[in-house]
């Protein structure tokens, strides 16, 4: 097969490309330039779009002896990922930009271009197992990225390859070192690639501006503090609430609600965070087949953690394919904008992804 290897400049995608070469494929490496700042490749900071990362990717491709190109997706990335990220925060959501990037850039714009140019598949360094169209958790549970890949539909997965999914990360590093790849001990990337300072609140503040509102007690309705915009808050957040006096009961307070219209951020005790039902939009059923009725599964509501047994029911509401999710036990920290990913547990082969949706609403009331 002709395989396009997306090479970020990190160790995982370098080994993924190497494994595709070993498998006998005709491999070409591509690094995506995603920064909109024209000078970024010259002056760049660390992040997935810095000059060092492009150079690291090129160096790895040279060692593997494969052609390598840098493709400019900066405009698409800004429109589809960064702008959407900022807009979602302004609306009181907590978006995950990696999900959006996978859904709209890597496995959409890039993959479409690759197929049109004559490639058969796109290989990335993601940690997930993919076989026969079935997407499963990676062997390395700590590194598993099936959550951020679960937004991909059947057609997108049918042209994807994740060669690292069957190997623990430490072995990937050892393999990179054996192959003479200089990125073998390069630190893992963290945080959000387009916010290299790691200061998300400052990044958003610079783009959204100051939109003052109140921090209000969930029980008493008392106005506890002022804030500069709902984009500084996430459901379940405990620190940085700006409240001076402790709660009357002495227990910690968490963000339990965000209303972008009025700018009101509601805080309350941990009990207020408990969610029993979730409504998710933009439903994706990974097999391509919508189930006939409710499915018993395990739902995951954020990239790391937040799992509970659940029953998921496909519905159509407001003209959109959605999923109603009833939890068998309550979850906390369930934020709008995150994905709800549905798994069928499987200890041997890895939990199977059966579908996903974007969280658009939650309720603390258990369905009777």
């Amino acid at each position, binding site marked *: 097969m002709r395989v396009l290897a997306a090479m970020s400049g990190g160790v995982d995608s370098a080994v993924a490309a190497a494994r595709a070469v070993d498998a006998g494929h005709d491999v*070409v490496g591509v690094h995506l*330039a995603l920064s909109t700042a*024209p000078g970024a*490749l010259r002056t760049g900071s660390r992040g997935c779009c810095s*000059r060092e990362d*492009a150079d690291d990717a090129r160096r790895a491709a040279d060692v593997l002896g494969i*052609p390598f*190109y*840098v*493709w*400019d997706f900066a*405009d*698409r990335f800004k*429109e589809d990922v960064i702008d959407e990220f900022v807009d979602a925060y302004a609306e009181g959501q907590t978006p995950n930009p990696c999900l959006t990037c996978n859904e709209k850039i890597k496995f959409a*714009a*890039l993959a*479409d*271009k690759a*197929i*049109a*140019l*004559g490639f058969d598949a796109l290989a990335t360094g993601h940690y997930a197992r993919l076989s026969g169209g079935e997407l499963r958790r990676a062997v390395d549970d700590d590194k598993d990225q099936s959550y951020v890949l679960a937004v991909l539909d059947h057609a997108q997965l049918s042209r994807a390859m994740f060669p690292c999914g069957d190997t623990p990360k430490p072995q990937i590093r050892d393999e990179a070192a054996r192959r003479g790849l200089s990125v073998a001990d390069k630190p893992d990337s963290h945080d959000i690639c387009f916010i290299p300072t790691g200061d998300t609140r400052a990044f958003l503040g610079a783009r959204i501006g100051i939109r003052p509102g109140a921090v209000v007690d969930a029980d008493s309705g008392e106005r506890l503090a002022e804030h500069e915009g709902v984009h500084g808050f996430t459901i379940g957040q405990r620190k940085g609430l700006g409240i001076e006096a402790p709660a009357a009961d002495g227990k910690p307070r968490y963000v339990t609600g965000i209303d972008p219209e009025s700018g009101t951020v509601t805080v309350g005790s941990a009990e207020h965070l408990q969610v029993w039902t979730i409504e998710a939009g933009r439903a994706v059923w990974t097999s391509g087949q919508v189930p006939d009725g409710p499915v018993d599964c395990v739902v995951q509501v954020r990239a790391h953690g937040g799992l509970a047994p659940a029953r998921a029911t496909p519905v159509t509401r407001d003209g959109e394919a959605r999923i109603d999710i009833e939890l068998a036990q309550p979850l906390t920290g369930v934020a709008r904008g995150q994905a709800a990913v549905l798994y069928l547990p499987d200890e041997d082969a890895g939990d199977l992804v059966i579908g996903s949706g974007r969280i658009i609403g939650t309720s603390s009331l258990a369905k009777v």
Partner: protein
Amino acid sequence: MLPEAVEAMTAVYAHPGNASSLHGSGRRARRRLEESRESIAAALGARPSEVIFTGGGTEADNLAIKGIYRARRAENAARTRIVVSAVEHHAILDPAQWLADNEGAELVVLPVDVTGVVSPDDLRAELAAHAASTALVSVMWANNEVGAIQPITELAALGVEFGVPVHSDAIQAVGHVAVDFAASGLSALSLAAHKFGGPQGTGALLLRRDVACVPLLHGGGHERDIRSGTQDVAGAVGMATALRISTESMESATTRITRLRDRLLDALLDVPGASVNGPVGALRLPGNAHVTFGDCEGDSLLMLLDANGIECSTGSACTAGVARASHVLLAMGFDMAHARGSLRFSLGATTTDADVDAVAQVIGDVVDRARTAGLVSVRGGVRS
């Protein structure tokens, strides 16, 4: 590299010597260095003392822009303007911009016409209004992307008329078209050896003796005190050898390469939606073919041609790490979509009819495929 240049350099490496040393090996090295200087001067209508060896073309350009600017301002602080064309290489634009950002320079950009050529009338108007506050003018001899040869003699004459030094980045021209430094009337001219079959990392600035230039590198006082640093004797020998051969064979090479270039252009322009960028005929560098294929992206074309064993480039090689739309094409009045769909083919001594045939055979299919890819990967079709 030309085999003769490799051979000449190898001979130097076999018997190294420091051209500044007083002993025997030093004298031998100095003789080779000075013979190279004389040979290069003779090939370019310059005096040997006007040849300043540098570590490549970018250094020569930086030395000219920064060195002459600083010297002119030291004489008269009012001379802040640096006049350049809009299609200069980044080795000119970036140091000029740096001086604007850091040393109080004012960057003045001359427009070009749709073929990429500067109008002497524009320079006349600029100098008539601002000669007293102008430090220097820099306009390239020929453009590296679209091959446009500039009216350098006319531009240099305006510099003489208004008393402003004129530099030309002739890196694309030397070895390919006739360049006579004295006859041009220029104050300074940059060249780079690897553009005519010499080694990479070796270049020179031709600098008239009456043009003051503040050094970038201070040290042992080499190269007329303008470029300190132990001289690269082998590089100088390689550059001189390559320039001698290029000059001797220029007439026949120009005839041969121009014919191949025109054959290639015919084949490329046969593709529906293709158009040539830059001048046609004698106002274009012989080895340059630059074409835009509408509705596709140059990086797709580049990859597909590379897969067919055909090497070409989008933009200029220096900015090709990431394919940004060419500032040259934008300055010529084209939009982003046009710029992004452009490809440059360079022809040289080793190019054959078979190479042209190979491009002609695949280009139609390659463009079709790239068009499909361009349409799927860009929202709403071609970006503007």
